[in-house]
């Protein structure tokens, strides 16, 4: 491995614009040099921002660092650039698996076209289906059998997909009457990380969480997680339809992109994003746990007031997140 890294480093030094940064970053990742791997991958992406494989490599590095949110962002970017990218589907399937969303993981992995089905995808799909089959209908706790002793990792083939999934101990926890949260294991061969438990808040109350902090019916607030899923708040459009989930999905990754832009510019942490549209003003700010807070107000509302609203709603969101975390 050191020889391979040295050779690839030399190649990259000779031609910094070459694509050799991808195998080099991946080799560094597999050697456990995650910080160096991250630097190499980011520098390469600066030059080649539209290479799905490069985003895939960066995602793997983030995943190995335990940062599933960023890993997910990068795999999503890879899929935007190449919607049939099997490794990105595999990666996102693993993220969903790790978060206990077995159905989504199964859907995603089985959607990979047969021609693109690598052995890694097939093995992961088999494992997810096995875990799904082991989940009881009544939500009782279950340990997915995986044999005793050292786990047998499902390893995607090298060099394209060296990520491994090791079902060390797949436990489906139960919280009646809320749906069970799966604390699944998704590990690399080097580490085993637990998934933090997250309580299931009352959905009707979370939709109204910010109502008292807003001043009128033309104002809305949403708390969106790093994956573009609604955590709290609501947004009802002019026709009375709740479009919160659509808005949240469109805003997935805003926080990480804003952060990356500011990092490139050396302007410090981003504090707010203000969008003026024909009929509304939309203000966003980073919230705890990698989430994003979004406030919208009609165009009549002074911009300064929207920023004050944002601060007020952020205080409410912080308080709520502390209580539910």
């Amino acid at each position, binding site marked *: 491995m050191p020889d391979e890294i040295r050779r690839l480093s030399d190649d990259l030094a000779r031609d910094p614009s070459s694509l050799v940064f991808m195998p080099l970053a991946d080799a560094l990742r597999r050697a456990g040099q995650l910080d160096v791997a991250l630097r190499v991958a980011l520098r390469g992406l600066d030059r080649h*921002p539209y290479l799905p494989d490069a985003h895939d490599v960066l995602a793997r590095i983030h995943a190995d660092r335990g940062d599933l949110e960023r890993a997910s962002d990068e795999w999503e970017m890879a899929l935007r650039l190449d919607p049939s990218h099997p490794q990105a589907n595999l990666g996102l399937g693993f993220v969903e698996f790790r978060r206990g969303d077995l159905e989504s993981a199964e859907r995603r992995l089985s959607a990979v076209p047969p021609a693109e089905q690598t052995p890694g995808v097939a093995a992961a799909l088999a494992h997810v289906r096995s875990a799904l089959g082991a989940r009881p209908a009544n939500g009782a706790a279950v340990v997915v059998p995986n044999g005793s002793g050292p786990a047998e990792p499902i390893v995607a083939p090298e060099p394209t997909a060296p990520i491994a999934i090791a079902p060390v101990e797949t436990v489906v926890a139960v919280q009646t009457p809320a749906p069970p949260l799966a604390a699944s294991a998704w590990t690399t061969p080097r580490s085993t990380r637990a998934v933090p438990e997250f309580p299931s808040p009352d959905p009707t109350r979370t939709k109204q969480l910010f109502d008292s902090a807003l001043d009128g019916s033309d104002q809305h607030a949403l708390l969106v997680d790093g994956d573009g899923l609604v955590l709290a708040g609501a947004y009802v459009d002019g026709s009375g339809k709740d479009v919160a989930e659509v808005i949240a999905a*469109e805003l997935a*990754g805003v926080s990480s992109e*804003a952060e990356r*832009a500011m990092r*490139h510019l050396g302007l*410090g942490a981003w504090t707010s994003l203000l*969008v003026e549209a024909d009929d*509304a003003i939309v203000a966003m700010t980073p919230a705890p746990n990698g989430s994003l807070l979004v406030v919208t107000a009609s165009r009549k509302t002074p911009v300064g007031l929207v920023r004050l609203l944002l601060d007020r709603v952020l205080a409410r969101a912080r308080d709520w997140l502390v209580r539910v975390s």
Partner: protein
Amino acid sequence: MTKTPYAELLGMLSRHRGVVGSFVVSERDGLAVDSNVQIGVHAEAVAALAASLHRKARLACGAAGCGVVTFLRLDAEKGGVLAAGRDDLVLVTISEARANVGLLRVEMMRAAKALA
């Protein structure tokens, strides 16, 4: 060397106090069409990210029924990024904290109308 139709506009924006760079970027693919930036600014990477942010804001505003995005302002501790778009093109300015954002906003929104 041929000047693009945006060279004069970008030069005008870059002369503002606290502006370290400005560029015209294609929202669709994130590629900078023309730029006027100080040495050391990662124009290509920032252009791609600004275009992506603009696209996300446009799509979210579309979903929310907020109409067309006219201006975007990303604030950070020591400065920020301003963007005004028209069709596929986005005019982006990188500014330090000392920049007059109000003035830049007016000029960028006026200039954005002349894009495309």
